[in-house]
C-alpha cells in the first residue's frame, strides 16, 4: 500500500517539474478554433499543480478512500463469522 502511494507521490512530484506546459488536446483545439476565451475560472483551493500541491493531491485522494474503509469498519468487537 505504502509503495504505491509513494510511487504516486513521486510521479506527481516529477510531473510538477517535468510535465509539458503546452495546452492539452482540448485547450489547443479551443485555441485553434477560437473559443478558448470563453473558458471561465472558478474558485478552487490551489490553482495549478506545484511540487507540494501535487503531492498533497495524491494524499488527499488516498485519504478519501482510506477514510471510507475506516468509516465502514463500524462493527467493533465482533468476530466476523464465515460467510456462506
Amino acid at each position: 500500500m505504502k509503495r504505491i502511494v509513494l510511487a504516486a507521490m513521486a510521479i506527481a512530484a516529477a510531473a510538477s517539474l517535468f510535465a509539458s506546459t503546452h495546452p492539452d488536446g482540448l485547450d489547443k483545439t479551443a485555441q485553434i478554433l477560437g473559443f478558448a476565451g470563453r473558458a471561465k475560472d472558478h474558485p478552487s483551493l490551489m490553482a495549478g499543480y506545484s511540487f507540494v500541491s501535487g503531492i498533497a493531491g495524491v494524499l488527499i485522494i488516498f485519504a478519501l478512500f482510506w477514510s471510507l474503509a475506516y468509516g465502514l469498519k463500524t462493527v467493533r468487537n465482533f468476530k466476523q463469522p464465515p460467510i456462506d
Partner: protein
Amino acid sequence: MHIPDGFLDPKMSAGMMGAAAVALVFCMAKVRQAVTAVIPAKALAAAGAGANRVMASGRRILTSFGERYIYKMGMAAALVFAAQMFNFPIASGTSGHMIGGVLAAVLLGPFAGAIIISVVLAVQMLFFGDGGLVAIGANIVNMALIGSLVSYYIYYFLKKVLPETTSVMIAAWCSVMLAALACSLQIGLSGTISLGLIVPSMLKAHIVIGIAEALITVAGIYAFTAMTGKAAKEE
C-alpha cells in the same frame, strides 16, 4: 480533456450532471455489493452481544476483502491522479495527459473504475481548478463513464478473441477517442462552436494521446499488479 466552465450551455451541463449522478449511484450500489456481505441470521444469533450492532447496520458488513478492495481503489486513484498531472508533449505545441479510465477499470472492475475517476475529477476540480465546477457532470460522463465504465466492456469483449495486452491497448486508445468524441459533441451541441469544426479537430488531436494512453495503461497495470499481487477483482 477537462472541460472548463463556459464551454457548455446550462442545459447541457445540467443534463450531464443528472446522467453522471444516476450512473454513479448505480456504480456505488455495485461496489457496495462487492465490498460488503450479509451476515447469515444463524451467525448473528451465535455472535451474542456484538450482534445487536450488526443488526442496527442492516446486517451488512464490510468484508476483509472489501477493506483491501477499497484500499486498492485508493491506491489506483492516487496513481491515476499523479499520472494525469504528467502532461507529455505531442505535436506542435500541444500536450496530452492520461485519463486512466481503462487502467482503473482493468485493475478493479468497471464500477470501481468509474468511481475512482470521478473522485479524481472532483478533487482536481475543487482543489486545483482543473475542469469546470458546472462542467463536472460532463467531465464525469466523458472520462469516468465513457473513459472507464464503457471502455472496460471494449476490453472485456476484445479479450475473448485477442490477447490480454492487445485488448487493453485497443480499449485504452478507444477510451480516449470516445471521450474526445463525447467532449466535442457536448461543446458542439451547446452551440459554442459548430460540430463540423470541433469533432474532427478533437479526434485528430487525440489520436496520438490515445497511443500514449495505451502504452502507459499497459505499463501501469503491470506495475500495479507487480506491487500489490494479483489484481484485486480476481481475488
